[in-house]
């Protein structure tokens, strides 16, 4: 009984969420962990859910993966309603939780074979798939050792392999790179990109700005259980406006004020200020503005000492949207 009071996304959407909410009873009242969020994730997209600990990321993820029943609203994942058809959702998604969930006492291979069997693969099929994944995530050397002997990076690779045993349409990753060193993090990013290339939709949570920026096609910023803003990393940064182009002319240049007035009249330039020896230009889109500005200055024969572009970071976006910096936001809140 799917009500048609609202259009529930397109068939191409991997995840459609409408007014999803969840609160928890705690001592002394209730905590509204998720306060009516709306989301759409297109098929084949890497979608990042960015926010501090305690923002409601994990709670949302747990509702989308059928681990937690929503209090209100609706969520369609891979075309099935999480509340009404959880079994269909489970067959179509993969999930790698924060705690991973590999069985420590069992070997990597045993873990993978079991997982494949639980998705209905026969013994031979499951063994073949396990071998394939062991190759894919480069665990051949360790495949027959107990998972408890694995390093953090190896373990994470096993856990991701567990999540994709059955070729899920949507893969959910909860803080996939938490606690990983930079090399392992980069390795995992590559793995996620490779998954997208095969058409898998990836929905991940993170509280790392670099991760959202480098990896995700689209990002939603969540804070206090509500979505503060949403878009591509580029759009989010642009809605802060003002990327800055910093120009420091060489010694033989015209007077700064003269140059400033000239540049302020350019297309792309919203504002031009002088700060010491430097002219700071606010531009809408640095990628377009910078070449035009440089070309203009060169054709005028203005010698340049340095030219740089400073883009607002997602950190700035977060600060702007929530009034707090991401680093401080998680403090004193439970995850």
């Amino acid at each position, binding site marked *: 009984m799917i009500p048609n009071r609202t259009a529930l996304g397109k068939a191409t959407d991997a995840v459609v969420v409408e007014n999803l909410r969840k609160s928890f009873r705690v001592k002394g009242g209730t905590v509204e962990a998720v306060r009516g969020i709306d989301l759409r994730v297109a098929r084949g997209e890497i979608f990042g859910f960015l926010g501090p600990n305690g923002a409601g990321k994990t709670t949302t993820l747990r509702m989308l993966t*059928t*681990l937690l029943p929503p209090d209100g609203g609706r969520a369609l994942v891979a075309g099935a309603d999480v509340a009404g058809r959880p079994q269909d959702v489970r067959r179509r998604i993969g*999930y790698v939780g924060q705690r991973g*969930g590999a069985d*420590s*006492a*069992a070997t990597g291979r045993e873990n993978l074979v079991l*997982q494949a*069997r*639980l998705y209905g693969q026969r013994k031979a099929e499951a063994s073949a798939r396990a071998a394939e994944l062991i190759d894919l995530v480069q665990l051949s050397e360790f495949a027959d050792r107990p998972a408890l002997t694995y390093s953090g990076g190896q373990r994470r690779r096993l856990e991701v392999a567990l999540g994709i045993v059955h070729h899920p349409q949507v893969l959910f990753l909860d803080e996939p790179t938490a606690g990983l060193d930079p090399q392992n993090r980069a390795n995992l990013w590559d793995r996620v990109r490779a998954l997208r290339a095969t058409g898998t939709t990836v929905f991940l949570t993170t509280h790392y700005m670099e991760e959202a920026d480098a990896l995700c096609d689209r990002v939603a910023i969540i804070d206090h259980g509500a979505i503060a803003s949403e878009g591509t990393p580029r759009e989010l940064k642009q809605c802060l406006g003002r990327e800055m182009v910093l120009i420091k002319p060489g010694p033989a240049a015209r007077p700064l004020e003269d140059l400033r007035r000239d540049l302020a009249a350019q297309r792309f330039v919203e504002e031009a200020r002088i700060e010491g020896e430097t002219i700071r230009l606010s531009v809408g889109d640095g990628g377009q503005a910078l070449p035009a500005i440089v070309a203009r200055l060169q054709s005028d024969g203005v010698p340049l000492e340095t030219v740089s572009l400073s883009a607002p970071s997602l950190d700035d976006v977060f600060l702007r949207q929530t009034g707090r910096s991401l680093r401080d936001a998680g403090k004193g809140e439970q995850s």
Partner: protein
Amino acid sequence: MKLVTDVWVLMGRKVREALRQPTWVIMNLSLPLVLLAFYAPLLQSLAGAPGFTRGSVLDVFVPGMLVMLAYVNVTAAGYFLLMELDSGVIERLRVTPVSRFALLMGTVLRDVLATIVPALVLVAIAIPFGFHPRWAGAAVLMVLLALLTSATAAASSALALIVRKVESLTAVTNGTLMPLLLLSGLFLPLSLAPQWLRVLAHVNPLYYAVEASRDLAVGTIGSATVGQGFLVMGGLAVLAIAWATRVYRKAAA
């Protein structure tokens, strides 16, 4: 059928886990063996006393030990579940399309195996010391033990998922352990007990298991006592499994 395969695969996981730590399975036997060695001899002077009229003293005592084996160790099921909850294994399994019933039964059936195998070892060890089981009765007795183990494992798991804390689970498990054991007539037959104690024993499910177990060991299969034992243990097993399945379904791991 998918359900049967799932239960089988999940039980295999738990059996492998147990085989990796064989000491754990062997330790299950330690308490019954210690009691057999250092406690059972104290009972020898009671031969022929009320409650010891049938067969040897061990024919009365060993069936009680078997019930203890099927109960005491199995109350740990909840702890193991909490450990797996901590490591995220349960969460991972709950996102697969496996039924919650299969998740539960994989563990429960492993616990049944981990009861029956040591129980058979205990029987074998006790025979040279004067235990005279009847084989048909002993076979039926193993079924009774399986029911008791299932009920205990399922209830312990359900409880663990509800209280979520090792401390709370310990409080419940330890708080009920001795009263249940003492009131079951497991150490000394309750026919030695005053009237009020005997009446009280009738609210203790373990009492029915112990009584039935003693009948079965000496080969009395068709008695009302055995019927009662199966009724109580079977009923509890069904209830506990239904309860635990329900809790598994709702629990947010």
